[in-house]
C-alpha cells in the first residue's frame, strides 16, 4: 500500500482526479443529476462547477437512459464524457445504452467506432436506504464484454484509476462505495500519477490464507485479518481493484502461496463476483489448495430497511474470521 504525508478522503480523491482531468483535457465533461451546484446528492463534487462552469459540469433532466445515451453519442464523436449515475440501483434504467450500445459499438463496427466514456455510479449498503438505493450491482456490468469495470477501495486507488479511466479509449464503469466517500481516508500524493487498469494489489501480506476482497470489503477483510492474527493465522488480503480486465495472476499466485482462499464481495452472492473470482482461483491454484475456495457475498435477499435486518445482509469481519478459522482448522 502507498504511503504519503498528505491524506484525502475517498470522495476528495475522486473529486481531485476529476478536476485534474477536466483541467488537462478540454474534451472531458461531466453530466448527471444534481452534479453542478448541488455537487451530487453525496456532495462529492462540490466546487467543480465553480471552476469549470455549467457546460462542463452539466446538470441533466432526470432521464438516466437519455443522458447516458447522449454521452455514448458524444464519446463517439469527439468528446470524453463522465456520466454520473447517482445510485447504482438505477443501472437497470441505463442498461440498454451501456450493454447494447456503449459496450458493443466498437466490436459491431469492426473496430471503426469507439466510445471513450466513463460511467461513475455507487454501490454499498448500510446507509439505511432500503432495497432500491443500496445494491452493489457491479456483476451486471462485469458480465458484458466490451466494458471495463473498476471497484477501487482506497483514495489512492480511486484517484489513480479514475484518471486512467478518463484517458482510456473504452467505456469504463467505476463503482464507488457511497459509504466510503467521507469515512475512508488515506494517503494520496500531490504529484501526478495514474494506476494502470487491470492490476491487482496486495493490501496486506500473509502466509496462511488469502482473503480476496473488493471495494469496501477490503476493510472487512483487513479487520478479519487482524482478528486472525490474534489466533496465530496470517492472512493475506488481495484487492483485484479492477474486475474487468481481471488480474488473475495476482489472485492465483497468492492462493498458491497460502493454499487457502476466501472471496468477499458486497454484490449478491448468487451468480456473483465471488463466484467468478473463486472459479479463477480454483482453476489456477487447484493443485496448491488445502481447502475448497469459499466465498462470502451479500445475502440473496432484497436489502431491507430496518437496521436490525440490513446489517445481517452485508458481509462482516466476524463472518470472514469464522470461515477462515474453520478453513485453517483452528
Amino acid at each position, binding site marked *: 500500500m502507498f504511503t504519503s504525508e498528505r491524506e484525502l478522503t475517498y470522495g476528495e480523491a475522486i473529486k481531485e482526479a476529476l478536476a485534474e482531468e477536466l483541467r488537462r483535457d478540454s474534451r472531458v*465533461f461531466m453530466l448527471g443529476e444534481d452534479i453542478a451546484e448541488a455537487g451530487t446528492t453525496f456532495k462529492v463534487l462540490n466546487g467543480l462547477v465553480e471552476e469549470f462552469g455549467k*457546460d462542463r459540469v452539466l446538470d*441533466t*433532466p432526470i*432521464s438516466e*437512459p*437519455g*443522458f*447516458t*445515451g*447522449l*454521452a*455514448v*453519442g*458524444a*464519446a*463517439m*464523436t*469527439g*468528446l470524453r464524457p463522465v456520466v454520473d449515475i447517482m445510485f447504482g440501483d438505477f443501472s437497470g434504467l441505463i442498461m*440498454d*445504452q451501456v450493454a*447494447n*450500445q456503449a459496450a458493443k*459499438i*466498437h*466490436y*459491431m*463496427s*469492426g*473496430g*471503426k*467506432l*469507439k466510445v*471513450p466514456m466513463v460511467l461513475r455510479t455507487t454501490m454499498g449498503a448500510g446507509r439505511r436506504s432500503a432495497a432500491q438505493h443500496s445494491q452493489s450491482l457491479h456483476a451486471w456490468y462485469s458480465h458484458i*464484454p*466490451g466494458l*471495463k469495470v473498476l471497484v477501487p477501495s482506497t483514495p489512492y486507488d480511486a484517484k489513480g484509476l479514475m484518471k486512467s479511466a478518463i484517458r482510456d*479509449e*473504452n467505456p469504463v464503469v467505476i463503482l464507488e462505495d457511497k459509504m466510503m466517500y467521507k469515512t475512508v481516508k488515506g494517503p494520496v500524493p500531490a504529484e501526478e500519477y495514474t494506476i494502470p487498469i487491470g492490476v491487482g494489489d496486495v493490501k496486506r501480506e500473509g502466509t496462511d490464507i488469502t482473503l480476496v476482497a473488493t471495494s469496501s470489503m477490503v476493510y472487512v477483510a483487513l479487520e478479519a485479518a487482524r482478528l486472525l492474527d490474534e489466533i496465530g493465522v496470517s492472512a493475506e488480503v488481495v484487492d483485484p481493484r479492477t474486475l474487468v480486465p481481471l488480474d488473475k495472476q495476482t489472485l492465483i499466485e497468492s492462493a498458491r502461496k497460502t493454499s487457502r482462499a476466501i472471496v468477499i464481495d458486497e454484490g449478491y452472492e448468487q451468480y456473483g463476483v465471488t463466484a467468478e473470482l473463486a472459479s479463477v482461483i480454483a482453476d489456477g491454484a487447484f493443485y496448491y489448495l488445502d481447502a475448497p475456495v469459499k466465498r462470502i457475498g451479500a445475502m440473496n435477499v432484497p436489502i431491507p430497511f430496518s437496521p436490525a435486518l440490513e446489517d445481517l445482509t452485508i458481509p462482516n469481519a466476524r463472518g470472514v474470521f469464522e470461515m477462515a478459522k474453520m478453513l485453517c482448522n483452528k
Partner: protein
Amino acid sequence: MSRVQTKEDSSMSGVDREQWLHMYEQMVKIRLFEEQVNELYQGAKMPGLAHLYIGEEAIAVGVCEALKREDYITSTHRGHGHCLAKGASVDRMFCELLGKEPGYCRGKGGSMHIADQDTGNLGANAIVGGSSAIATGAAFASKRLGNGRVAVCFFGEGALGQGLVYESLNMAQLWKLPVIYVCENNLYNEYTHHSESTAGSMKARAEAFGLLTVEVDGQNVREVHETARRLVERGRSGEGPAFMLCNTYRYLGHHVGDISREYYRPKEEELKWRNDHDPLKMLSSWLIENQLADSGIFEQIEGQIRVEVESAVAYALDAPFPAPEEVSKHVYV
C-alpha cells in the same frame, strides 16, 4: 407549427435537374439493392434476416442529400437505405450482409449494425429507438466542438413507444442541439398497425417539447428534400432541433421472411401504395411533366445501377469470410 410549402419550381428551390436525377439514381440503387437482398435470402445465400426499405426510399435520399458527408446519421434495423443514401457503396454493403471480411464492419455487424465512419454513419441500431440519444449526443458534441455538423436520427413510428425518444427530444430542445429526428411512419410497428399502439397525435408529441415539427409526404422526394434542407440549415445555424414526420409505406414484410401478410394488412392496400404513391414513379413523372427529362434517362440509370448491383453481389459472394482470429478482435480498443 405549419406544414412547409413545397415549391413546384425546381429552379426556385435551388435544386437543379442533375441533382434530381442523382436522387432518382440513389433511390433506384436502394430499390435494386434491396431486391437483390431479398433474392439472396430466398436463395438461402444470406445468413440471418434483413428488413427491407423498399417503398421508403424517398426519405433516406431526400434527407441525406441535404447533408454534408461529415454530418452524422444514426439508422435502424431497416437501415440499408440510410447507409446507401449517406454514401456507402453497394459492394461493401453486400459483403457485410453476407458476413464477409471486406464488409463495412468486417462482417461482425451484419444487416442491422452497418456503420461507416467515413460517411458520418454512426451505425444502424437493432434496438428500436436505441440510437435516439446517440444522435442527440453527436449533435451535442458538434455544438460543443463548434464543427458545424448536424445529426439526423432516423427511426420508425414504432420507436414512438420508447421513452428514450422523448428523453432525447427533451434534451435536444433544452440545449438547442443541431439534430433532426426523422420519423418514418410506415404505418406498421412490425406486424401491428400504429393505431393499435400509438395514442393521440404523433406530431403533437414532438410539438409538446417545443420542437419545430413538420409533416411531409414521405413518398415525395422533392417535398422530403426541401423540408430537410430547411431544417438542416436551421439546425446548422444554431436554431435547434426539429422533428420531421414522414408518411410512407413498407412495400414488403417486416423482414424478408414475412411473406404472408394478409392477417395484418390487405393486399389492396399494398397495391394502392405501390401504384399510386411510388417514390420513383412520382419523381420521374414530375421530371417528365416539367420537361426536365425524358423516359429514356430513367431506363438508362436503372440499367447502369443494375450492372453495379449485380457485379457487387458477385464480388461479395466470392469475398472471403473473416479469419477465425477476428472473433476476439475489437472487443476493446
